[in-house]
């Protein structure tokens, strides 16, 4: 595995080129180009604010648009990076069949190009926050650690799903539905505090509030982003370490799975 990592590091320039290629291709033939990275979450924020304010749940959360925007931006990064990462080998099948390079480069560059988008979208966040009189947290410098952890988690998932997708194209179909469920299971437009701490399901009492954090790393990421950007405080170190551990484990497992299977990609695609 270490030799694989070394071979991968030698090709970092290829990753750079592929990321640039993906970003360029994404905004070719669009008038506003890269601005869409900023406009898209803003538009979603407006739609969600209107819908949930009218529906009523929005008014329970202070500075609801800011709260929403953090959820949306985090989710968009997660969703689009995992989905496009999962399809990366099948999409670039012709390349995999014709030229050799460390295969993991494809999902990595897809995820990284989504990371660039995410960072651009974060830029929008600050003027919006100023608009709603939020205060900057003195812990802002810890933000990169959260971003890095989330990227690791997404990379791990992208490795796993892209590998499975080579053998079973059904994976993307399942993911489509799975990601929709995940969207509703993440506290994007609601607050985790509004979830009941005791809920009876078939006679078993569940602490939904706790389960959300244990089982859903995306919820953990959103919570940490909000701790810094929305509440203007800091996140708990133990909370961070546990999430980081899960993310790293996912990454290592995904990488192991991919390097084990990548030898037969050439004939499977």
């Amino acid at each position, binding site marked *: 595995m270490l030799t694989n990592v070394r*071979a991968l590091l030698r090709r970092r320039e290829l990753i750079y080129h592929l990321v640039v290629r993906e970003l360029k291709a994404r905004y070719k033939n669009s008038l506003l180009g890269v601005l869409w990275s900023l406009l898209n979450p803003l538009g979603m924020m407006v739609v969600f604010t209107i819908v949930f304010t009218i529906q009523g749940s929005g008014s329970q959360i202070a500075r609801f648009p800011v709260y929403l925007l953090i959820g949306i931006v985090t989710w968009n990064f997660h969703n689009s990076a995992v989905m496009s990462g999962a399809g990366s080998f099948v999409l670039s099948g012709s390349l995999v069949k014709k*030229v050799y390079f460390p295969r993991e480069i494809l999902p990595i560059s897809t995820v990284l190009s989504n990371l660039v988008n995410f960072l651009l979208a974060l830029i929008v966040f600050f003027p919006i926050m100023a608009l709603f009189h939020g205060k900057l947290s003195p812990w802002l410098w810890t933000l990169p650690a959260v971003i890095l952890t989330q990227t690791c988690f997404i990379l791990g998932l992208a490795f796993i799903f892209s590998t499975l997708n080579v053998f079973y194209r059904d994976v993307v179909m399942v993911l489509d539905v799975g990601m929709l469920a995940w969207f509703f299971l993440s506290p994007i437009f609601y607050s985790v505090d509004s979830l009941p701490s005791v809920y009876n399901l078939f006679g078993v009492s569940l602490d939904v509030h706790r389960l959300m954090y244990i089982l859903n790393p995306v919820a953990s990421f959103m919570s940490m982003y909000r701790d810094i950007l929305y509440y203007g405080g800091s996140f708990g170190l133990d909370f961070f370490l546990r999430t980081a551990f899960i993310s790293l484990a996912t990454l290592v497992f995904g990488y192991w799975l991919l390097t084990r299977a990548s030898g037969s990609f*050439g004939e499977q695609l």
Partner: protein
Amino acid sequence: MIVRVEDRVPGRPLLELRHVSKRFVLHKDYQQGVQETFVRLFDPRRRQSRGQDFWSLQDISLRVEPGECLGIIGPNGSGKSTLLKIITGILEPTSGDLATNGRISPLLELGAGFHGDLTGRENIYLNGCILGLNRKEMARRAESIIDFAELGEFIDIPVKHYSSGMYVRLGFAVAIHTDPDLLLVDEVLAVGDATFQHKCMDSIQKFRAQGGTLILVSHDLGTIQSICHQAMWLDHGCVRDFGSPTDVVMSYLNEVARGEQENAGAQPLPTIEGANRWGTGKVQITGVEICDGASRPCSTFVDGGTMEIHVKYRANERIEDPIFGLGFHHQNGTHICGPNTKFARLYIPFVSGEGKVVYRIPSLPLLEGTYLISAAVVNRDDTEMFDYHDRAYKFRVYPGVSSERFGLVTMRGEWAFEPGADAQFAQQPGKSRAAGAAVAADRQISKSRRPY
């Protein structure tokens, strides 16, 4: 075990394969869905239903040293492309060891990895990067790549607007300019117009002359013979023959010819009866055999090789002083020559019963092509045709000893160079630097021309 070293370690072979085999599992329905896998979980015969094994390569061992050039020949489906894909790493061998040493650049599919939305120039960098070069190294080469690809101002528009020729030219230009330690060429030269094909061939020759290492897969046996040091003949995934290109090509051609003859043997020979045969039949030609120097029947030759034509006859009555003759035609109808026993002053007093006349060519002067032979027997005065087989026997000639091309025959002429008085000084060795350079250049040319 598979070992790949990208920075070449000197003193080691660039490529070593030991007992490499590759198995493909052929599924009836290629796509293996979750549903099928699920059903198979509960199927007691699941082990058997996994599809059919197909060995694309079996027990291939191979070593390529720096500066060598290996040619791979074989019919379609013999595993040539699979072998190249295993060498590049696109496929993994099922068993066996593989070690590569140095950067490998494949010319398998030109322009693979180009992105339609990026411009030609952007794609040069991207493709170079895929082949393992960094930005600085590519920047140094970019101008000569653009020159070579003859793209001019088109270089800055997206490649999706390119013609297929431009696309392929750019692909070749990038691949050849990456200065790989080992260059793999798979039949890619069959694309592009004639001018560009020559240019590709020239740059491959130049790569060779500069000491580059090359593996060439081609159906153009002449190219294999003129470029390669060694040749390998693959057949159904096995090595059938390995050695000097001329030997391997010859045994390959013999096999091809044997296969063709077996196919032809299933049908009656239409050429002997009917319109292609006439005569009174007093003497009949019962068979014409084209043989090699050892009197074995053969239908493929190299120029400069030995050929024998055995004409068997049966005379139903005693015929005095007959003349046997042959006609050599090119496939396109050109009559090349018509030797007969009278011209050769071979006096045959009479024929009766069965016998044989042999025409021997010690060194065949024909160049590459397909040729047809007519055979005839006439009376002394050429007034009565006993039997005539018009262009009924076929043989092929491949490039061999002579490096001549163009036309049908080699005249075996000799060239001499007699410079005028102005150039006399350059002839005296050691007198000037220019002379030394000229001699070195001359040596270089003769070296690169040598087949081995």
